[in-house]
C-alpha cells in the first residue's frame, strides 16, 4: 500500500473497478419492465432494475441509443451479474444484451415472458436466478484500488446562486485533484455549457476536441432555432430564476466550475458512449437530471457527485449519487437527501479547499461502500435520452 489515495472496490475480469456489486435486472422493453422491477424488489439491495419506456417502436438512432445504454449497464463495473427479462417480440435483442455482459466476464441469464409462459412463471424463475447470483456476489471481497481507477460523474441540478459560488467550485477542486492523480471525470448537460464553452475549449488537449465541443453546442442552438423553439423557459428553469439566476450563460458559467480550473479536456463523447480517456471528458447529454446521470453512468462512471442549491432526490440504479449543497436552508430542510453541507463557504466559516478535502474523502468512502442518502432512500431513477417520436 502507498500513500496515494484510494478506495476498496471490486476488480472485474475486464480490469475495470466497481464501487458496487449489483445484480442488474434489465428489461429489454417497456413490456417487461414491471417483471424486472418485481425481481429486483425481491432481491434488494443487491438486485437493482433499470425499468424504461423504450425498447420497441423506435426509429434507428433512438433504437441504437436505447440498446447501447442498456448494453453499457450490462457491462458496467458496478454490476456483478445480469438477469435479462425479455418479452419475445421486441426490437431490443435479449441475446445482444447478454453478450454485452459476457464480454465483460459477468454471469448472465435470460428469462422471456412469452416463452416462459406469463408474468408469474417468469417472475418466479428470474427471482431464483437473481438470488443465486446475489449469493455468489455477496462472497466477493473488495480490494484496494488506486484513486486513478475512479471515473467520477459531475452533475448539478436544482441550481441556485450558491451552486456557482460554493458547491460547484468545491466539486471542481475535487475534479482537478482526481485528474492530477490520473483519474477521470465526466461533465454532461450541453445546454449548461452554453455560454461557458470558451473556458472548456481553451483546456482541450487537441484542436479536434475543442472543435467537437463547439459543434455539439452549436447543434443544440441550431436545433432550437430550426424548431422555432426557445431554450429560455426551460433554461434557466423557473426555480433557477427564483433563486436569482437570470440567463443560461450565467447558469453555465456557474455549472462549468464542476469541471475544475485546470483539468485538461481530453475527449467529447456521445450519450452513454464509453469514457476511455483519463482526464476530463464532456458527454453529449441533455440537461434533464435523470437522463444526464443515466448517460454518464452508462459511459462508465462508478460514482456521481451531484451539487444542488434548491435540493433534489435523484439517484441511479447502479451508481451511488452523492448530494452536496451550499445552501444552508436546503441542507436543513432536505437533510434526508443531502450527504454533504458546504454552506460554510457562503458565510466564510469554511474555505473551498477545506470543503474539497471533505468531499474528496466522501467520494473515496462512498466508492468503498458507504451508503449515500439516495441509496438509503431507494432513489434509483433511470431514463434513457430520446430524440425522436415513437412509431
Amino acid at each position, binding site marked *: 500500500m502507498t500513500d496515494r489515495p484510494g478506495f476498496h472496490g471490486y476488480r472485474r475480469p475486464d480490469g475495470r473497478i466497481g464501487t458496487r456489486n449489483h445484480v442488474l435486472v434489465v428489461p429489454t422493453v417497456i413490456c417487461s419492465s414491471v417483471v424486472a422491477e418485481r425481481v429486483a424488489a425481491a432481491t434488494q439491495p443487491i438486485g437493482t432494475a433499470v425499468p424504461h419506456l423504450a425498447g420497441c417502436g423506435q426509429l434507428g438512432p433512438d433504437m441504437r441509443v436505447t440498446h447501447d445504454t442498456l448494453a453499457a449497464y450490462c457491462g458496467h463495473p458496478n454490476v456483478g451479474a445480469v438477469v435479462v427479462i425479455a418479452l419475445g417480440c421486441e426490437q431490443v435483442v435479449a441475446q445482444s444484451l447478454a453478450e454485452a455482459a459476457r464480454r465483460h466476464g459477468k454471469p448472465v441469464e435470460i428469462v422471456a415472458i412469452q416463452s416462459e409462459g406469463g408474468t408469474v412463471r417468469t417472475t418466479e424463475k428470474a427471482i431464483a436466478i437473481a438470488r443465486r447470483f446475489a449469493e455468489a456476489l455477496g462472497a466477493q471481497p473488495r480490494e484496494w484500488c488506486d484513486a486513478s481507477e475512479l471515473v467520477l460523474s459531475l452533475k448539478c441540478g436544482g441550481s*441556485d*446562486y*450558491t451552486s*456557482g*459560488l*460554493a458547491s460547484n*467550485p468545491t466539486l471542481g477542486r475535487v475534479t482537478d485533484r482526481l485528474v492530477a492523480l490520473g483519474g477521470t471525470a465526466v461533465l454532461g448537460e450541453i*445546454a449548461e455549457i*452554453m*455560454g*461557458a*464553452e*470558451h*473556458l472548456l*475549449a*481553451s*483546456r*482541450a*488537449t487537441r*484542436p479536434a*476536441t*475543442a*472543435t467537437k*465541443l*463547439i459543434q455539439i*453546442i*452549436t447543434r*443544440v*442552438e*441550431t436545433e*432550437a*432555432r430550426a*424548431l*422555432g*423553439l*426557445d*431554450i*429560455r423557459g426551460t*433554461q434557466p428553469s423557473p426555480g433557477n*430564476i427564483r*433563486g*436569482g439566476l*437570470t*440567463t*443560461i*450563460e*450565467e447558469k453555465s*458559467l*456557474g455549472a462549468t*466550475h464542476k469541471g475544475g*480550473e*485546470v483539468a485538461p479536456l481530453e475527449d467529447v463523447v456521445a450519450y452513454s458512449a464509453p469514457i476511455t480517456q483519463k482526464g476530463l471528458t464532456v458527454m453529449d447529454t441533455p440537461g434533464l437530471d435523470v437522463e444526464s446521470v443515466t448517460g454518464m453512468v452508462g459511459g462508465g462512471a462508478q460514482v456521481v457527485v451531484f451539487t444542488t442549491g434548491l435540493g433534489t432526490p435523484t439517484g441511479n440504479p447502479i451508481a451511488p449519487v452523492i448530494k452536496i449543497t451550499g445552501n444552508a436552508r436546503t441542507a436543513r430542510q432536505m437533510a434526508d437527501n443531502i450527504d454533504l453541507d458546504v454552506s460554510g*463557504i*457562503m*458565510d*466564510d466559516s469554511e*474555505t*473551498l479547499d477545506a470543503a474539497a478535502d471533505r468531499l474528496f474523502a466522501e467520494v473515496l468512502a462512498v466508492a468503498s461502500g458507504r451508503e449515500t442518502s439516495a441509496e438509503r432512500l431507494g432513489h434509483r431513477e433511470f431514463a434513457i435520452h430520446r430524440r425522436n417520436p415513437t412509431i
Partner: protein
Amino acid sequence: MKPILVISERDNVATALQALEPGRDLTLEGGMVSVRDAVPSGHKIALRMIRAGEAVIKYGSPIGLATAEIPAGAHVHTHNLASTRGRGDLEAPRLEPQPRLAEPPDERNGVERNGVEKR
C-alpha cells in the same frame, strides 16, 4: 457575512448574499454603490450604470445583454437582462474554436481567485 460578492474584477454586477434594502450604501473596492431597488438574497445588483445593449458581466464573462439602461444599484434580473444564447428568434452565434494550447487558463484562475478565495 459580506452583503455582496463581486466574483471577478471585470464584473459589472455583484451577487447579494443577503436581502438588500433601497438606500443602503455598499462599500466596494475602490468605490461605493447605493442600493436603488430591493434585491432578494442570491439576486444580482448593478455595480455601475449599464447601458441598454451592453453586456452584463459576471464570473468575468458575459451573461447576456441589458434590455434597458440599468442604473448603478439596481436589481438586475429578467426584467432588464436577456440571454443571447439558445434562442428560437436569434441566429446561433458563430463560435470559433480557439483552443489556447499549452497556455495556462489564466482567465479562469483569475475568476476563481478574485471570487471566492479572496474573500
